[in-house]
Structures are given as C-alpha cells and as structure tokens.
C-alpha cells in the first residue's frame, strides 16, 4: 500500500460501524491525492508545506490517517483545516457544479498518535456523505532554499544587471508534483520538484542598477598589502543601494553568493570576481568585494606622535597619520580612507580599555572633513579624489594627513 516513492500519504478509513476510536480490523481505505500544494519559503528557518486534498467522507465518524514515513515532518506543526470546498459551497474557486451541492458540516473530533510510527489519525465527523476539501499544513525539514545572484556590469561599470535566483533543494524524501513555490517576495512559481532534486529559478531581474565603484583603505578591516613598506591593501567594491532610486527597494536582498561579470566591449563578458552578498535591508547598501586594486597605492605612516602631561599620569596626545596616495589608473577615482581612532590609540599606546576622547586637529587635510552620514565617533571615513595618471605615465602623489588630538589619556 505504501510506496517507497511516496512516503507521505493520506488515507481515509471507513469505520461506519465504529463510532469510537477502536480500530477496525477489516478496513476499506481510500487514498485521496493532492489537489494543490503550496510550499511557503518565506520563513528564514522553516519550510511550510500546505496541501489540499479532496477527502471522501461518509456520514458519521471517519478516520483519516496521515503518515510521513522517512520524511522530517514536525507533527506538532500539522494543521488540519476543512475548507468550504466541494461540498462546503463557500469556496470562491469551487468548480462548476460544486457550488450547487449541499454543504457538509465537517468537524475534527480528535487526533490520535500511534506508537512508534510517524503518523496520526484524525477522527472527523461529517453531517453527510460527500467530499470535503481539506488543507493540511506542516513544517517539513530538509527542503531548503538559498539565494544567489549573477551581476553583469556594463563596460563603463556605472550600471549593472542583477539577476536574483532562488535555489530549492529537496532532500525531504518526498516528491511534489506541480507545486506553488513562494519565497515571501517576488513571483510564485508553479513547478514540480522531485526527491533529491535541486531547482533554481529566477526570482527577479533588475536592469540598469546604478552601481558605485569604491576603493577603500582601512588598516583595521583590510590590513596591509605590504607591511614593511606600509602599503595598505585597497579592495575595490561594487556598492548597490537597496532603495527605489536605485531601482530596488521592494524587498530586502537575501544573503547569497554574487558572481560578478563585466561586459568586455566585444559582445562578451568576463568574470571579475565574486563575494557573499550580506542580507541587505531596505535602504541599506550591499557591498561586494570584487578584487584588489593594485593600481591605487596608499602608503600609511605615523607622521607625529607626541604627548603632553596634564598632571601625574594624565596626558593629552597628538597623532598625525600621513597618507601618500598614487593613482596609476588611467582614469580618476575616489578613494575612501577609513580609520578607527581607537585602533590608532591602541597601535601607539596599547589598549587601556577606555573609549578615546578625541578631536580633529587643524592639520587634517581631507577636504570636507569626515563623511557625516557614514562616519561614527569610533570610525572616520574620508573621501579623496584622485586624478588619473599623467600622459607621461606618472601618477601624482597626493598627501593627506589625519590630525588627531587624544585627550585625557592614561
């Protein structure tokens, strides 16, 4: 009766003569098939399966068996609902002829759980003989989803086309025929998904997304390219903003791998890198680390380190961090220079466990000061415009200084 390929089944046992829970020894079993299945993938930690079946019932008490051999159903989550279908008459999408039938009054009396079996038995009373549409919902393990992206940047790297895919892996040991699949956003897919099958579908394709290309040096976050020469690592990022202005902003961007390609100007594309895209809420930025920019050279040195005793072991300190920057690219770029004040203090004086009380000194040369939106008291961000290298191939050396007054240190 139970097929290995169909570990999840529903059976109606006609127990006309037995109004109690006593099990009949001679059974007549009908096996209602699934009429509709919806798999809800909107919960980040759980997959909810909802299936509808048309269940033939007789007047009186009916026994409805539900079993799930070799599948990971959480029995506590199983919800059995009788819809106003077929004989209920109230269902809006009832088929022609179904609405005319008298309504069945169907009620769940109890649920019994047999020992050592992944199954349960509903006792259902029906006011008459006929069919009822029921919906059974349950959480199913090992039916997993993940997201991944493919981004194709324009040749000028000012826009890109972002395709978001959902990948569903069915290791639940249950196959589903034509099934509605919904991730909580985007379209609903109607696809079959077999046992051990992985299915990938395009959720959304966003064209002409403005992309910001950034070069960043941050000794705390990215470290050095060449420590003895004090040369900082300068990663290049693509930054996408999840807002309406950037043609996004409809839903958070899910965590997933982003593979990035660039149009090569000859009708093809070249793979330029990949990164894990973090979960990006609305209005936030997804920063994608594409690769290291070796043509932007940043040399960082401590140019000044002095302290003045205020009293006893109490000092005010003065630190100047110097950045010598060269852009060997043939186009102008903007470099983001990021520094943690606390990391600078720790680098020079060790970590005393206290926050740093600091002020920006007059010798700071970054035009416009720190980025007001993105800087915090603990981390400063400056933007530096770098001209393209000269016609002679030489890059202009641009020097900037970060002048900090650290107060009340001990």
């Amino acid at each position, binding site marked *: 009766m139970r097929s290995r390929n169909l570990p999840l089944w529903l059976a109606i046992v006609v127990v006309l003569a037995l109004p109690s829970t006593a099990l009949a020894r001679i059974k007549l079993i009908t096996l209602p098939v699934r009429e509709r299945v919806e798999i809800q993938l909107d919960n980040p930690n759980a997959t909810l399966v909802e299936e509808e079946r048309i269940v033939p019932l007789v007047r*009186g008490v009916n026994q409805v068996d539900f079993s799930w051999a070799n599948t990971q159903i959480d029995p506590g989550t199983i919800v059995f609902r009788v819809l106003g279908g077929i004989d209920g008459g109230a269902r809006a999408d009832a088929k022609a002829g179904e609405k005319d039938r008298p309504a069945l009054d169907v009620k769940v009396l109890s649920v019994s*759980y047999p*020992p050592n079996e992944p199954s349960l038995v509903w006792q259902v*009373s029906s006011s008459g003989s006929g069919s009822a549409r029921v919906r059974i919902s349950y959480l199913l393990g090992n039916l997993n989803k993940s997201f991944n992206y493919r981004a194709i940047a324009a040749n000028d790297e000012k826009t890109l086309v972002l395709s978001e895919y959902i990948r569903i892996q069915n290791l639940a040991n249950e196959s589903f025929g034509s099934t509605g699949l919904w991730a909580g956003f985007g379209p609903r897919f109607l696809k079959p998904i077999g046992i051990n099958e992985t299915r990938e579908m395009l959720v959304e394709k966003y064209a002409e997304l403005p992309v910001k290309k950034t070069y960043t040096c941050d000794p705390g976050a990215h470290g050095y390219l060449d420590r003895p020469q004090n040369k900082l690592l300068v990663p290049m990022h693509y930054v996408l903003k999840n807002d309406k202005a950037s043609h996004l902003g409809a839903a958070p961007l899910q965590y997933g791998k982003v593979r990035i390609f660039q149009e090569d100007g000859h009708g093809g594309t070249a793979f330029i890198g990949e990164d894990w895209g973090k979960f990006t809420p609305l209005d936030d930025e997804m920063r994608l680390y594409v690769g290291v920019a070796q043509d932007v050279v940043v040399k960082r040195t401590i140019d000044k380190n002095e302290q003045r005793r205020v009293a006893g072991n109490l000092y005010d300190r003065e630190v100047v961090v110097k950045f010598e920057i060269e852009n060997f690219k043939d186009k102008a770029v903007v470099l983001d220079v990021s520094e943690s004040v606390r990391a600078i203090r720790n680098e020079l004086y060790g970590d005393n466990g206290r926050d740093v009380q600091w002020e920006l000194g007059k010798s700071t040369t970054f035009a416009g000061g720190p980025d007001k939106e993105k800087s915090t008291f603990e981390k400063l961000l400056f933007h530096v415009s770098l001209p393209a290298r000269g016609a002679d191939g030489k890059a202009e050396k641009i020097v900037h200084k970060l002048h900090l007054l650290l107060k009340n240190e001990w």
Partner: protein
Amino acid sequence: MRRLLILGTLVLGTVFLSALAVRAENVDLSTVPSRNTVQLTIYNSEDLTLVRETRKVTFKPGANPLQFSWANTLIDPTSVELRFLTNREKLTVLDTTFPHAKPQMLYWNVQSEMDGEATIEITYFTSGISWSADYIGIAGRDESQLNLEGFVRVNNNSGEEYEDAQVRLVVGRINLVQKIAELARITPQQVTELGVAARDHYRVAAVKLAMDMPLSDAAAAPAPAKQEEPKQVAKEGLGEYFIYTIEGTETIRNGWSKRMRSLEAAKVPFKIQYRYRPAEYGDQLVRMYLLTNDKDSKLGTTPLPDGVVRVFRENGRDGLSFLVAQSVKYTPIGDKIELNLGPDPEVIFDLIKLRTWRDNLWMQLQGASVFKKVGEPGVAVEVNSSVVGWSDHTLYGQRVRNHTKKPIDLEVRRTFPGYVVFRSELPVKNYDYQTVEYTAAVKPAEKIDLMYEVVLHQGRLAKQNNVTIERAPVKP
C-alpha cells in the same frame, strides 16, 4: 493489548482460614470481575495519574480474599486503596498482604456480613500517563486579530490500556516527595519499609483534589443522536488548580497519544510591539504579538496551561506563513501572552556612538620626586599623581528605520552597570535600579535617532551602583 490489570481474583476455596492460607492451596477457582468505570486524573507538572476504577464484586458471608495485581505496569504499590461504594457497613477490609516473591500483587482479606453484590472502588497512582497543552494561532493578514485554538494531548505509556475512561486533566503544580515512577519499581516488601510520611505526604494534595470528586455527569452522558461534535472540555477551578474534564469517555491505548481541542477563540485582538530587551530576547530588536487572557480578548475563561504556541499568519495568497513556535508558561486569567516573532528585517535598529568625553577628573597625590641636573644649581620637583576618579560621557543615537507600512511601537530596555546618569528627553523610566526603559513611536518610512547621554562615574566617584534619570536635552 491489555497487559495487566487487575482485579480481583475472588477465590472460592472450600476452606476459608485466611487469605494466606487460601493462597497456599494448589487448586484455585477464581472469578475476574471486569471494570465498570474508570477515571484518569492526569497531572502535567509531575509524572502522576490518579486512576479510580469501579467494579462489581459478589461477596459471601465470611472471609473473601481479593487479589489485585498489576504486572508490567507502573503503578505505585503504596497508593493502592480499596473502598466500598455500596453495602459499606457490611464489608470490612481485615488486612492487606503483599505476598513474598510476587511483585506487583496484593491481597485484600474482606470480611463480609452479606451475601450479594457490592460496588468497589480501587484507586492508585500510576506513572507513564501524561498530558500536555499546545496552541495554534492563525493571525489575519492585517495582524490585528488571530484565531486561537488550544489542544490537550494525552500520552499513555503506562503499560495499561484504559478503555472508555473519563479523563480529567489537572492544571497546576503539585508537590511530590517521591516520584511515582520510583515507587512503581519497588517491591511490595519494601512498602512497609517506607515511612508513613513518605507514603502519605505526597498523596495528600492529589487525593484531596481528585478522590472526593465524583465521576462527572459528562462521563455518563449518552452518545449524541445527531452528528458527532468535538468533545467539550469543561474547566473548573479547584484551590490552586484547574481541572479540565473531557466530555464523555476516551479510550487511550497503551503507547498512543490523543489530542483534543480544549479551547477555541476567534478574532482574538492583539497588539504588536517591537522590543529590545537583551536579557530576555538577546541582542536584537524583536517583534512581539501581545495578547491578554481576558474576556475582552475573547479568552479569560481558564488559565492557559504551559505549552507550545505555533503561530501562523494568513499570507494574503490563500495560504499561511509560519511565524514562530514558542513555549509559553502557564498564563493565569487576566495575564498577558507574549509571543516573540524574532527580528523584523523591515525594521532596522542600530546603536550609534556619537561622542565620548571625560571630565570631573580627580588625581591622587603620591608625594613628589626631586631631580637635580649635574653641574647646575637648583632642583626640579615633580608631584607624582595618578587619576583616581572621573566621569565618562557617551552620547548615543538609537537609530531606528521603519520600512514597514505601519507605525510601530518601540520599547527599549538597557542595563548600565555602575554609577550612571541617563540624560535624555525621551519618555524614560527606571525598569530596575540599573535598567532604563524608554518608548517611541516610529511612523512608516520614518528614520529617527533617539538621543541620550550616559554618564558613568568611575573610580572614586563611583559611589553608587544604580542609574539616575535626568530629563535634559542632549545634542550631538
């Protein structure tokens, strides 16, 4: 399959010297009176069920030995009691014997002054039967109301099958000094080694509760002539407990469990609140459904036993979204039910440190050092001192971005160890001596920074360990 039980072998030997003498004979004739009624009173806080069963037994004048045995079950032998419900004045239990080398068996020697039938009642405790509650809530699409169903699930692993039993469930915590499962494992010989207090103390509360209550009318109610309805679960308070009585009788087979609906409430209103309470929910802002177990909320007829609540929401696509499964504690009538749905990706909650500074610096003088340069007159004097007291000021902006389509209510609790002044214009109050609580409303699509300054007095200035609230404007 019935593993055991019981009752009674009524031995009709020709010589009635004593019960023990009868048992010494090699040729026995027994009758096995069957159960007439059985009632299970199941406690969910302990592995304890009080079984009360009645049987009809015919007695003859003189001594009537009754054998009661419970092989392969989990009955506590110290709890077995016999009472006569009819002809009480003509029947007496002369003695109770636990025979040697026959575990899980006893004999009652009943002296009868009558010749006829009597109804007897046998009560005992057994382990292995339990019950639990669980709930399913399905919220509407707009998340203002939900349909709540409560269920009770009875699990029978006692080794015995109870057919057509009246089932009563006790909500509450009783006190036991010994586990019934332990007592079920001891031999009858060990019974007498138990102190009286040990035998009786733990039984008192339960027996008072359950023994004196008659079988309810529902148990004897005839089967309905019309379509069978889901059974009603009658609820009534009793002292510190609540008793749920399931209508009619139930058969719960050994090894099986059975789940029945105990509560149904449609359109229960609830509120949504966003909370930051690290001690309770971790370092994250979580979304809560807040319900009240009262009549205004279409509940409030009974305390809600502890159990798992599974919450779904209509997803607007003719289906459900699973939101959370959460264990809730016993909820008295009138108390709140708080369901934590976890973080909401559409509400961003960041704490930004805007500025830090120190003042109120105190130095401790530790004498002076005197220096003299060789070849030069005079000396240099330096006073030695170190910082021993100061005040750390930190200005914070609690940044909240509401990307939902509804206004949200926000409640934040933050704990500050040490001697702290919390300075802000926010509606703030002390939750406890070192925790402040403030609230805010954030409109749809609004981004706000809730500003406050924390002053932490350190060193010799740390004269207290509490938070003082000062209402004052703060600026970045």
